[in-house]
């Protein structure tokens, strides 16, 4: 109880302190707070400007990025414009000792930051990577007596020579929806031979999808090996359920009616479009259920105009997922089986279903680079800041992209929230966590906008509790623990005493038996 109360009081005090003495946090948009770049002249000195690659490095008494074991390695290409922002760790910013300052330099490029100190906690280097080779990022000898100086001597900058880019790897979609000018599909809940022009069977769920389109509408039939609900969702490639346009429904066991809902996936839940400001855009529907097999058929516009639905364009590839329940019609029941995130290509008029058709070049997803950092403002029970930088392979920031943050716990991955990247490709989240010791975090970019999904993990040792921050809890806790242990031991000691009484009862009988036999022998 006392621990809870104490942490609440500490949190309130910190909140008050934060309000009274606002500090620059990596959470915030630094656009208006970044100090003038003292080293911008370096850039000009090196001449030509190309795309910029951004890096953020935390400078602390524990070394670069808060750990002496962190192998700081930055790799860029020749000709890249490189921007490295060095930020003093939040904890160190409270240390107003005069020697608490750093100057970071990059050998070989002969550039260095202005002095980083609690009063000037950030400095940025911007330069053109025009020299090929390995260079050292280190704390300058000018600040030889600064905290953590020895731990910040081995950062590495690698500038690679430009290479001719290799052709992107081509990916074949899992399924194909052909164009059919005059569709023969009849929405009657049954799939006849050759009724649909294309079919796909999922290896995991054993569900079969029949489909085709006429340029304006999608004709779909989904078959499951169950009598419960059945669903198909369309969305971004690798997007899973989140944001997918989900058609879900069932055939009523009693009435035989087919109930279908045009829904939208939000994370791992789904909601009818009508609950999310949209409308049900299913044009026609039918279904049947017999011999443990359920069939649903429906027609859906390729472009419904509903914000909850995806606009399907011919000649492009989308993601889709399948799921069903073997017996439950209740749409809230968790699926019994679901497919992986699959992909489907919407065919162009006159395009035959190809055996080995390849992805269109303009559909190729670009690789992304996600880096995750964790900052702690103070010892445990205080907010933890999770921050990511999201860039493409050229280290150019991706702006306005969603990033979800998770903690990995003993009980699995726990989502704590999401955020969007700012103009520097930075997204961050503050979280108050009652956690000690090691923190394992994950950040995930689901992909989208032509970019591939990416994930980043981090394991960080959190600071230990200091004596000042927990006073007087340890004393109270020790006394309480001691009393509890004494009470428990007393109880178990009493049990042993009672068990001894039982043993003595038994022993008396043995003694009696022995003396009886002695007497009989004597007799």
């Amino acid at each position: 109880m006392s621990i809870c109360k104490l942490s609440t009081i500490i949190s309130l005090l910190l909140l008050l302190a934060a309000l009274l003495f606002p500090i620059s946090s990596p959470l915030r948009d630094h656009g208006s707070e970044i100090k003038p770049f003292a080293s911008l002249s370096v850039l000009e000195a090196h001449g030509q400007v190309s795309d910029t690659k951004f890096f953020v490095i935390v400078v602390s008494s524990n070394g670069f990025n808060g750990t002496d074991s962190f192998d700081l390695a930055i790799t860029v290409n020749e000709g890249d414009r490189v921007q490295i922002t060095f930020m003093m760790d939040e904890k160190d910013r409270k240390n107003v000792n005069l020697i608490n300052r750093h100057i970071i330099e990059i050998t070989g490029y002969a550039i260095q930051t202005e002095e980083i100190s609690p009063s000037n906690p950030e400095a940025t280097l911007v330069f053109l990577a025009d020299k090929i080779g390995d260079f050292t990022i280190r704390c300058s000898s000018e600040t030889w007596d600064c905290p953590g100086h020895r731990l910040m001597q081995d950062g590495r900058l690698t500038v690679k020579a430009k290479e001719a880019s290799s052709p992107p790897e081509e990916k074949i979609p899992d399924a194909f929806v052909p164009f059919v000018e005059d569709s023969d599909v009849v929405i009657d809940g049954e799939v006849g031979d050759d009724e649909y022009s294309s079919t796909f069977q999922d290896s995991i769920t054993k569900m079969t999808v029949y489909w085709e389109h006429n340029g304006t509408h999608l004709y779909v039939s989904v078959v499951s090996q169950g009598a419960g609900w059945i669903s198909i969702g369309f969305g971004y490639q690798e997007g899973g359920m989140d944001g997918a346009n989900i058609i879900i429904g069932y055939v009523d066991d009693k009435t035989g009616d087919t109930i279908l809902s045009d829904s939208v996936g939000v994370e791992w839940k789904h909601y009818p479009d009508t609950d999310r400001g949209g409308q049900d855009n299913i044009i026609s529907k039918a279904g049947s259920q017999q011999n443990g097999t359920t069939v649903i058929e429906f027609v859906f516009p390729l472009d419904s105009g509903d914000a909850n639905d995806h606009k399907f364009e011919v000649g492009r590839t989308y993601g889709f997922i399948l799921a069903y329940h073997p017996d439950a019609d209740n749409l809230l029941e968790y699926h019994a089986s679901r497919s992986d995130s699959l992909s489907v290509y919407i065919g162009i008029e006159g395009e035959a279903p190809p055996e080995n058709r390849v992805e269109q070049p303009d559909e190729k997803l670009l690789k992304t680079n996600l880096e995750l950092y964790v900052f702690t403002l103070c010892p445990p029970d205080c907010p933890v800041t999770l921050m990511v930088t999201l860039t493409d392979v050229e280290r150019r920031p991706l702006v306005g992209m969603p990033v979800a943050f998770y903690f990995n716990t003993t009980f699995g991955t726990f989502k704590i929230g999401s955020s969007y990247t700012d103009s520097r490709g930075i997204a961050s989240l503050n979280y108050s966590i009652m956690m000690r010791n090691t923190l394992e975090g994950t950040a995930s970019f689901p992909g989208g906008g032509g970019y591939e999904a990416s994930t980043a993990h981090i394991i960080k040792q959190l600071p230990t509790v200091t004596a000042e921050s927990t006073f007087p809890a340890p004393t109270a806790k020790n006394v309480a623990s001691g009393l509890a242990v004494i009470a428990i031991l007393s109880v178990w000691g009493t049990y042993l005493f009672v068990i001894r009484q039982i043993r003595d009862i038994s022993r008396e009988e043995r003694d009696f038996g022995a003396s009886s036999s002695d007497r009989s022998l004597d007799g």
Partner: protein
Amino acid sequence: MTRIGKNTLAEANDALTYPLVTSGRRYYGFVGLLLAVVSIGVYAYATQLTEGLVVTGLRSQVMWGIYVTNFVFFIGISHAGTLISAILRVTNTEWRRPITRMAEAITVLALIFGGSFIIFDLGRPDRIQNMLLYGRLDSPLIWDLISITTYLTGSILYLYLPLIPDIADLRDNLTDTSRFKRWLYTKLSMGWRGTATQKARLEKGIKIMAVIIIPIAVSVHTVVSWVFSMTLRPGWHSTIFGPYFVVGAIFSGIASIIIAMVVFRKIYRLEAYLTLQHFKYLGYMMLTLNIAYIYFTISEFFTSYYGGKPAEMMLLNSLFTGIYAPEFWTFITAGLIIPAFLIGIPQTRTIFGITLAAIFVNIGMWYKRFVIVVPALARPSMPGGEWATYTPTWVEVSITAASVAGFILLFTLFTKVFPIISMWEVREGLEKPTRSENHKVETDAREVGVRSHAADQRSTKSVEDPS
């Protein structure tokens, strides 16, 4: 032969050992039925182990459903026993004698089945070892583990000690029985011969256990309540949860004893030992706790309501008029109002009326535990969130039914091996002179004294007056 009232010692022995030597067709049918229900539960649990907790209604938000409800319910019932038996023993209440054994057996079995529900609630029960290997003393779950283990050990000792003389009795007199039983009686009787030293040791052990088991029982349900109240969750974070849970536990515990009494009274023909008076005394105790529980309930909800915090109000609305209103008002009606009237009105204070009240109490108190556990979890904890839905699946219902059946089954088997009423304590009660007999003895003594005094006077007079 000693004869006091309408029972003789021989009659008492016959009546109390009657269930041990007779088992009719209906008994085997009943056991078969219970085994069938247990088998369904085993199948359900195997399904859960194979498929995971996804086959239950439990999800990330409502992760404690009827498993934890049952856990709290069974731990509550366990207070029936040892605590009530101990209080009556410590206060030397005479009418306790036919009840204590039943209460102590309920305690041990309820603790075993109650604890099992924690295992059922685990998606990965193989990881329970981590609780022992890596558990921290800061965690109320560890406190729970320690206190329940301690209580179970103490309850087994407290059940066993008063059993020793009866087991020895069965060892000596119940010779026409199976070899297993004879072996069991010989081993468990610990060589009891009823010597003065053995009696002294036994009484010492029973007295110590009776005293120590009371604070342990109180601490157990307090710790169970702390599992909830140590969190900051609205609906759980309450300072009165400790006493609230303890009172509720004894309340439902007494109700369980009454139900067990009426069943065994009828089946084992124990009408002479479990009389209306016993039911009335337990009924009065139950009524007292009923009123105490009403007081705690009003105090709990009124303070939350008066504070008016949005989260608390959201929860209260769901209970009073919202989605959990049916469960909540079932608790209020069945658990608190109906039993109070049934016992409070003299005309319904019969064995039937008191038993009906006890059944209502147990139904109502199960729902009380449900409305403690589930709504507080289902309430959205983030702004704009939605209420989680929770409906127990056939797996949870089957495991619950199997546990209840298992509880009844083991209790039934217990009564077939050991006397359900403490024979030696009843005998002791019968041998003890009643108040009227004491009065008669004292009167006789006085009369004898008066006569001898008169005789003395006469002899003195004759000495003084030789004429």
